[in-house]
């Protein structure tokens, strides 16, 4: 038992070091934004896919925003992908398509497999361009965002691009404020540090882009994955394509405003991520492919982030069990030492990361909320552990692929 605990603490220490390394890199290291200066170019043709399943509350905003972007209009095709919506999404999309003929082309999907990846896969029949951008329907892109996301594709090594997600409905309640901090840490520090260190920035599947030839080479969208973005990240990596992160390509999104929606969202992410871990971890680390060693290590750690929640819970349980066993005083004290060391230093690493993000964003007041993030942390650790357990026992319970759509809270216009 004690050795199992040692192993858990060792793994947690690795993640702790990783958090600190990323944060210190972001604060003091060389910052890479290699494509952000491309403001003049012979811009390529682009297709923007907007995934929409029952999005009548939000779809108007993104289509309005996309119709106003400063990209050469003759080189931009916007394709709202209406995925089996049963609300007014279809009517809104059709109205926009008729108001912007040639620029907005509606794609209506009435049947088939559920999930975003399946919808995007079907919509590919309309895509003729080499550069594809993807947005979820609750996002609101700024005027210059399309050019910023297209710019990295001038690099022939780039297969995928990811921009920064910024919550719009921050002030609604405690949850939205906590999610705002989490997003800041995740993008401003985590993703940018990976970009700086030439590791594996994660494709987020929205505010994102993919090269069509790269997508074709890796077999297209994987509609059996719950997180097609994570899946895409690893398949691109294995095929020698880079995913790059553009921290200055920011886009507003709507974050969940109630805990039950948040829990469902993070459970889906955890399941999808774990699914990718099982599929790619071994191949990534030991396989013969084009990823270099640092990408293999970082990619492996990234695959394991959601598995760390149940591992941490298990560590706490084991630490207490070892302590109360009282077989060996040294073992018990060591277990408590491990636990307290992790609690004092390990847990703090993520908070340090978020605090650094707030500093980089020049938001010194909102960082006061940081201690309350413990609440979000506890909810997440339980939800993610539940997701992992349900996956573990899925063969016994007979659970099948199920896509949970994230509920929207915006008042429709």
């Amino acid at each position, binding site marked *: 038992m004690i050795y199992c605990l040692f192993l858990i603490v060792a793994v947690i220490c690795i993640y702790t070091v990783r958090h600190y390394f990323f944060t210190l890199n972001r604060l003091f290291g060389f910052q*890479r934004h*290699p*494509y952000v*200066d*491309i*403001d*003049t*170019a*012979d811009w390529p043709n682009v297709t923007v896919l907007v995934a929409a399943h029952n999005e009548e509350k939000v779809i108007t905003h993104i289509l309005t925003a996309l119709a106003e972007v400063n990209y050469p209009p003759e080189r931009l095709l916007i394709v709202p992908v209406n995925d089996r919506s049963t609300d007014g999404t279809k009517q809104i999309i059709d109205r926009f398509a008729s108001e912007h003929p040639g620029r907005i082309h509606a794609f209506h999907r009435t049947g088939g497999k559920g999930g975003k990846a399946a919808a995007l896969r079907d919509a590919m029949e309309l895509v003729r361009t*080499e550069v594809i951008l993807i947005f979820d329907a609750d996002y609101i892109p*700024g*005027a*210059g965002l399309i*050019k*910023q996301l297209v*710019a990295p594709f*001038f*690099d*022939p*090594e780039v297969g995928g691009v990811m921009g*920064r997600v*910024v*919550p*719009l*409905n*921050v*002030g609604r309640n*405690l949850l939205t*404020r906590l999610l705002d901090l989490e997003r*800041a840490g995740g993008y401003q520090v985590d993703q940018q540090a990976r970009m700086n260190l030439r590791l594996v920035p994660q494709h987020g599947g929205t505010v994102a882009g993919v090269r*069509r*030839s790269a997508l074709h080479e890796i077999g297209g969208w994987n509609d059996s994955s719950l997180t097609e973005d994570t899946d895409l990240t690893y398949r691109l990596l294995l095929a*020698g394509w880079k995913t790059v992160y553009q921290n*200055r390509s*920011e*886009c*507003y999104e709507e974050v969940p405003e109630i805990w039950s929606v948040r829990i469902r969202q993070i459970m889906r992410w955890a399941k999808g991520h774990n699914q990718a871990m099982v599929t790619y971890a071994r191949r990534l680390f030991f396989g013969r492919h*084009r990823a*270099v060693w640092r990408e293999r290590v970082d990619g492996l750690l990234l695959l394991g982030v959601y598995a760390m929640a149940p591992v941490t819970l298990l560590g706490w349980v084991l630490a207490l069990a070892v302590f109360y066993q009282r077989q060996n005083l040294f073992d018990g004290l060591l277990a408590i030492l491990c636990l307290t060391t992790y609690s004092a230093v390990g847990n703090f690493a993520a908070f340090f990361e978020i605090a650094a993000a707030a500093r980089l*964003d020049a*938001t010194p*007041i*909102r960082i*006061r*909320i*940081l*201690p*309350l993030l413990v609440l979000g942390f506890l909810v997440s650790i339980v939800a993610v552990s539940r997701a992992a357990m349900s996956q573990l026992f899925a063969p016994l319970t007979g659970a099948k692929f199920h896509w949970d759509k994230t509920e929207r809270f915006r008042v429709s216009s």
Partner: protein
Amino acid sequence: MKPSAATALLVLSESVLLALPLLPAIDELLRKRDAKPLEVIQKHAGDITYFARGFRSYLGPLLERLRQCEVTRSNGRGRLKNNEEYLLLGDDRESFVRAASLHGPLCELLIAAGINATLPNGLNFVKEVYAAKSLLSGERNSFRALLCDEDVRLRQGSETMRWAHAVGRFRADAGCNLYGRVSSDREILLSHGCTFQRLHAPRIALGYVPGDRATSSGAVAQATRPLSRRLIDGDFEIRPGEVIPENLVARGTLRIGAGARMLGGVKGNRSVILEEKVVVSGSLISSGEMHIGHACRIGGPLLAEHRIEISSGAVCGTPDAPTTVSSPIVNATEGSLFHGTLWARETGQVIARR
């Protein structure tokens, strides 16, 4: 003290100790002083003429009076609503020093000139300068910001501190320092010894560039359909005169021999070295340093994460398809030509031709 009271006191004091670190959080949660979305959507940050356009609208109330000064060949003074003092120049007979009542090198007036303006040497303009006609600076002039509706010529050793925009041609003599943004709707000409950061114009010529024969877009025409990608682990060298009909990525240093022709984009994850007369139709990207040889032509964006050295005769972009050249450090030799944006994040320098 009774045991129950002691227990209650202990619990209370512990609760207070526990709650103390949370007080700022709860205070912020209730008062919502910083509960707005981050202001991060930069609609205009990439537009090089953003400040120039802003200044033009700021000048709006003065323009009619400036025209009157021009017609009556008189100068005028006044203050804007924010109490900023301005000088309107419409009299080309009076010297600038006298019109501005200067007693030293410092000019603290906002200047709007309706005449062809010629400035004396050694002046430091701490407010913006607007010229409705052409502007010829003195030597060693320093401008905070400059907007000109015709041609601008900065004489030797002058500098712009924040931005400058010319509707006509923008020319800087030897040794000028152009900090911030400089743009022209027509052409930017820089002499040797000039330093720069961000330049944008349909044509940016460093030193003397003979004619435009080298800039025909046909020479660097890009493929009309996506090209396949060739990925090479380690260093790679392309033989002189070779034609590569695909995108090329080298994980190490990439050297392209003289006269080679690359029909797609090219990337080297370390240094990229182009010998003379190489043609790259697509983009040219280096994760390290880049050396562009004599008379090379690059069609697409040109990026180097550390430094670019550009030899004379090199041409980047075309009049029909302008592009971006960007690196923290750009050293470009006289005789090189750019169409679009030339951006040195830290320092750009025009090197004298040997």
